[in-house]
């Protein structure tokens, strides 16, 4: 029997998830719609004062992105768990953590990358300056993958549970704190005209740390949930 290389397995998983998502195109809209609607609620609740909105726009966008990511990541392993393909992945000769990384990458491509295209529009609607929007996009680009990676651990841990949803939020939100802090302080620094490279470097460091480390507990938790 011819065995595939690790990279082939990695790209096969990504390709499969992308094809599956393409067949259910309508579901891709949900996280985006959620993101836009959460942002819309804020001006409605706070009033449409431009200075105020401009001041808190990055925080609103980041919190909305975080919630959208939390909402969509719940389904990361759900379908594969239900139809049994997750068990097949565990049984392949490849390291499960690499396959997990592929699943998370596919999730990031499907749920976070579209947000990157809508976020500038939302920023404009909240009266952000264009250079600040640039920094905001950079932080989203660096930060959203970390959210998916960390979220993956919690999804894997709560996979076998019937009502995992609320529990997942409790598990994951405390772990999201650092990335939210660095992202919003980077955007804050940009708004007051300070250099942002320090914050962005920290976010890069967290991203690489997360790519390296988080697949391991996720894979361990998946094996545990399946046993």
């Amino acid at each position, binding site marked *: 029997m011819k065995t595939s290389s690790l990279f082939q397995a990695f790209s096969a998983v990504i390709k499969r998830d992308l094809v599956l998502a393409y067949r259910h195109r309508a579901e891709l809209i949900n996280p985006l719609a959620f993101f836009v609607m959460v942002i819309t609620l804020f001006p409605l609740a706070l009033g449409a004062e431009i200075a105020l909105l401009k001041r808190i726009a990055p925080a609103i966008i980041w919190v909305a992105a975080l919630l959208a990511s939390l909402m969509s990541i719940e389904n990361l392993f759900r379908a594969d768990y239900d139809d049994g393909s997750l068990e097949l992945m565990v049984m392949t000769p490849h390291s499960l953590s690499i396959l997990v990384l592929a699943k998370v990458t596919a999730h990031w491509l499907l749920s976070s990358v579209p947000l990157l295209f809508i976020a500038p529009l939302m920023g404009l609607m909240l009266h952000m300056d264009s250079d600040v929007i640039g920094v905001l996009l950079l932080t989203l680009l660096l930060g959203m993958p970390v959210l998916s990676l960390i979220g993956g651990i919690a999804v894997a*841990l709560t996979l*076998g*549970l019937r009502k995992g949803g609320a529990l997942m939020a409790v598990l994951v939100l405390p772990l999201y704190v650092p990335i939210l802090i660095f992202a919003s302080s980077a955007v804050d620094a940009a708004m007051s005209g300070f250099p942002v490279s320090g914050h962005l470097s920290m976010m890069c460091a967290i991203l690489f740390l997360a790519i390296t480390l988080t697949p391991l507990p996720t894979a361990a938790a998946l094996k545990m949930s399946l046993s």
Partner: protein
Amino acid sequence: MFMRFIYKFSSPPYFYAISGKIIPWLTALFFLLLGYGLYGGLVTAPADYQQGDSFRIIYVHVPAAWMSMFIYVVMAISGGIGLVWRIKLAEIVSISSASIGASFTFLALVTGSLWGKPMWGAWWVWDARLTSELVLLFLYLGVIGLYNGIEDKRTASRAVAILALVGVVNIPIIHYSVEWWNTLHQGATVSKLDKPSMHIDMLIPLLVMALAFKVYYAIALLLRCRNELLEREPNGKWIDELLEKVK
């Protein structure tokens, strides 16, 4: 040799018997330390030149805050041991620590808030240490929620161990990110070992109180572990033998 001792100690009947003998001694030690610490802290220690008598809450607040972090680490380490060597007792120590740790975290937050009102003029400020303590409480709640959510308790223990290990890697990151974010809290007073910025008469009761809290944790942990052992193996042979003896 060492591993053999570990395996022997961690067998449920042996642990149950030994812990039953240790607990009364620990309780006596706890009341001794608590009595001395409280007397030293509340009566003999001089009032603070700036904060007056209200600084005395430090004798509960600081040990509780120390314990909240210490217990999380204990939980993660014993959880890791349980994952690697499948020692049932380590899993039980891990999960039994969670609710004790959550209580200490809550205590630290409440006393901190009571202390903050006269000192900073507010019950709660979004300060680095307070916030990271609050996040720690959320981490504990997640652990407890996950354990209760999973039916099979062996699986639940492994899930909790993974989560605790993830948390323990994250805590320094959370701590420093929050530290940079905002700080108002006074700097560490005691950790500077060579020259603590605290009078020795104030310091000694504080350390005694910290020790008393540690002993209290040990007592609570042993009691919870014994309870958990009985609950997990209601039909164990050694339990039947114990019951025979009681009759």
